[in-house]
């Protein structure tokens, strides 16, 4: 290689290194702050979401938002945040977090304390479940953005045909599903999420809670209870005894269920609110035939949905905390919440929005959602949650697939959770 070409190559390399380091710099010449906002894939039309961000930029001409989309799998998003926050990265300012992460990230000291942005007076504006999820040791570490909870979808047309009502209890659900199944050929009764992953935990906890069961109590495992054993056995019986759930539910995730139900091949489905919009799309086989209600409960108990949804927090290492707070304030304002609900079908985390006449008109079951969200429960809000769920997932899966009896699975889960809490607490 000649000296000249070497020199050229070296300068090229230097230039690219310089360029790379410049792009990390966040002020550009005009004194504008560039705010980096990380979030998952926007369900629905991204252009609409962009309009909302544009509106914020018009109101705050000295701030420019660079929103960066993370992979749609929540596990990968979690992994991204963990790696970058552990490395004290200041490359992003605002982050959107699943309900189960906030206590964990707060405990690690990765989130900016936002108690100032949400004074106690304002905290009642949001649903209680998400507020519990963003509170750690009485401080607020994130602002609820939008909310999700498990719902029961049913085929209103078929229930009508057989003169049935949507069920209030799980026992009712079994009975009605069997009636419809015996009259309609090739129909499944009830589809839900039973693959070994986080969704299985949400589904199972809903059965536990709606039988009065719990996972944690007074700092130790309370999972090995007769209520939970009964609920877990019931889930397995849905498949093997009552045969209203096909064995394939043990591999099903949300979209598997949505496709089966959306193809007109199931009477009942447990899913999140997002499915409604898809099921009512033009060309959908079940358009206009779908009903939505609260999940059933066991006889004499109260139904409890698992809480989902996303919260906005600020990276502790961000150099633009003030601007980040402005953005979060904007995104959780009634104006933005209404826009997101209308344009993308996101369910507002602000309670007052459910009295909004425009929203009620556009979203037929909005009123019912309010009640469900009020009683929705966060999964154990604990910094240990990610470890606890890793214990629960295989145990629940083992119980459903018959590798262990429900009793054995719960005993083993209880032992492992106590071990975890003991180790970490020490």
């Amino acid at each position: 290689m000649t000296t000249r070409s070497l020199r050229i190559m070296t300068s090229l390399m230097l230039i690219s290194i310089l360029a790379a380091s410049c792009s990390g710099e966040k002020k550009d010449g005009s004194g504008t702050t560039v705010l980096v906002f990380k979030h998952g894939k926007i369900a629905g039309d991204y252009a609409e979401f962009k309009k909302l961000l544009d509106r914020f930029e018009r109101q705050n001409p000295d701030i420019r938002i660079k929103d960066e989309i993370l992979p749609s799998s929540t596990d990968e998003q979690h992994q991204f945040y963990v790696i970058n926050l552990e490395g004290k990265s200041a490359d992003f300012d605002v982050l959107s977090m699943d309900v189960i992460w906030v206590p964990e990230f707060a405990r690690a000291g990765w989130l900016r304390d936002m108690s100032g942005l949400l004074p106690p007076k304002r905290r009642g504006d949001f649903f209680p479940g998400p507020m519990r999820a963003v509170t750690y040791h009485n401080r607020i570490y994130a602002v609820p953005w939008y909310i999700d909870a498990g719902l029961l979808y049913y085929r209103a047309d078929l229930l009508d045909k057989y003169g049935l009502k949507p069920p209030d209890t799980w026992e009712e659900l079994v009975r009605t599903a069997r009636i419809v199944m015996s009259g309609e050929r090739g129909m499944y009764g009830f589809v839900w999420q039973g693959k070994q992953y986080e969704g299985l935990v949400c589904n199972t906890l809903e059965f536990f809670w709606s039988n009065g069961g719990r996972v944690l109590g007074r700092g130790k495992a309370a999972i090995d209870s007769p209520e939970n054993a009964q609920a877990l056995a019931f889930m397995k019986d849905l498949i093997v005894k009552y045969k209203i759930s096909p064995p394939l539910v043990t591999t099903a995730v949300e979209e598997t269920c949505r496709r089966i139900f959306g193809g007109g091949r199931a009477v009942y489905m447990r899913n999140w609110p997002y499915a409604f919009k898809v099921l009512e799309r033009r060309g959908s086989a079940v358009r206009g035939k779908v009903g939505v209600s609260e999940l059933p409960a066991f006889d004499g108990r109260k139904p409890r949905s698992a809480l989902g949804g996303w919260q906005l927090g600020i990276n502790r290492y961000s150099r633009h905390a003030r601007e980040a707070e402005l953005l979060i304030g904007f995104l959780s304002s009634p104006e933005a919440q209404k826009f997101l609900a209308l344009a993308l079908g996101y369910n507002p985390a602000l309670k007052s929005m459910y009295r909004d006449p425009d929203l009620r008109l556009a979203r037929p079951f909005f009123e019912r959602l309010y009640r469900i969200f009020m009683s929705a429960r966060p999964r154990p809000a604990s910094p240990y949650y990610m470890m606890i769920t890793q214990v629960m997932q295989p145990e629940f899966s083992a119980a459903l697939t018959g590798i262990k009896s429900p009793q054995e699975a719960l005993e083993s889960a209880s032992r492992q959770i106590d071990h975890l809490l003991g180790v970490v607490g020490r």
Partner: protein
Amino acid sequence: MRDDRGTGFTAPAVVLLTLVTAYPLAYVLYLSLFRKMVIFDISKFIGADNYLYMLHDARFWNALENTAYITLVSVALELALGVGIALLINRPFRLKAVARALILVPWAIPTVVSAKMWEWIFNTDSGVMNYLLGARINWLGSPFWAIHAAVFADVWKTTPFVVILIYAGLQVIPRELFLAARCDGAGPWQIFRRITLPLLKPVILVVLIFRSLDAFRIFDTVYVLTGGGPANTTETLSIYAYKLLFQTLQFGYGSAMAVVVFLCVGLISVLYVKMLARESAW
């Protein structure tokens, strides 16, 4: 005089390798001696405790067993199929070039994409597999079938790699040997057994090294198909390590797990390399 400019020339490579391989490796080893959970501000030197805990960790043994099983079964199948297919495409026939190119397709598809495809094929309700078999097997949800479905997908994906290497190996066997054998009246099986196979041995060993190491670290195919479920019956060491490291953030124990995977893989390669050395000394 000895020319010692060699050191200077190799220095960049050595520095690079140290930076990207030796340093991370040393760091993982170092981490594995700690109880390190960033969330809880725990970072305590505990010596070999992580490794001792692993001895009693049923989930680790389960993952090791799954990994070994997947490696053994899928590598054996891939080798048998690979040799068979390579012999077939080694014969003269029309469209040979096309066939050779087509065989490579599965190998060219990114693993995650092909795993997603298999997830649909194995779908109980609307999958092609059950349609073809006229059955209603719960492929990914039954503890027995799930691991075999994963093996199946892996075999489909990596057999082409074996085929190509074996095919290359076949090209260097001199034609005359086959002709001479035929003159002496050897049948096709005898030719295969006494000539082809012995001469393919070095290539087969290379194939085994690559495939065993890859199979032992299997992650994406299984993770996409089953996530390790049902009930951890398909959880491999890499998946367990991933869950420890990135989902539950137990950096110490997760690193110990990674070190064990590394040691296993190292052991396998040493064994093979020994075999290979004996082979070439022949």
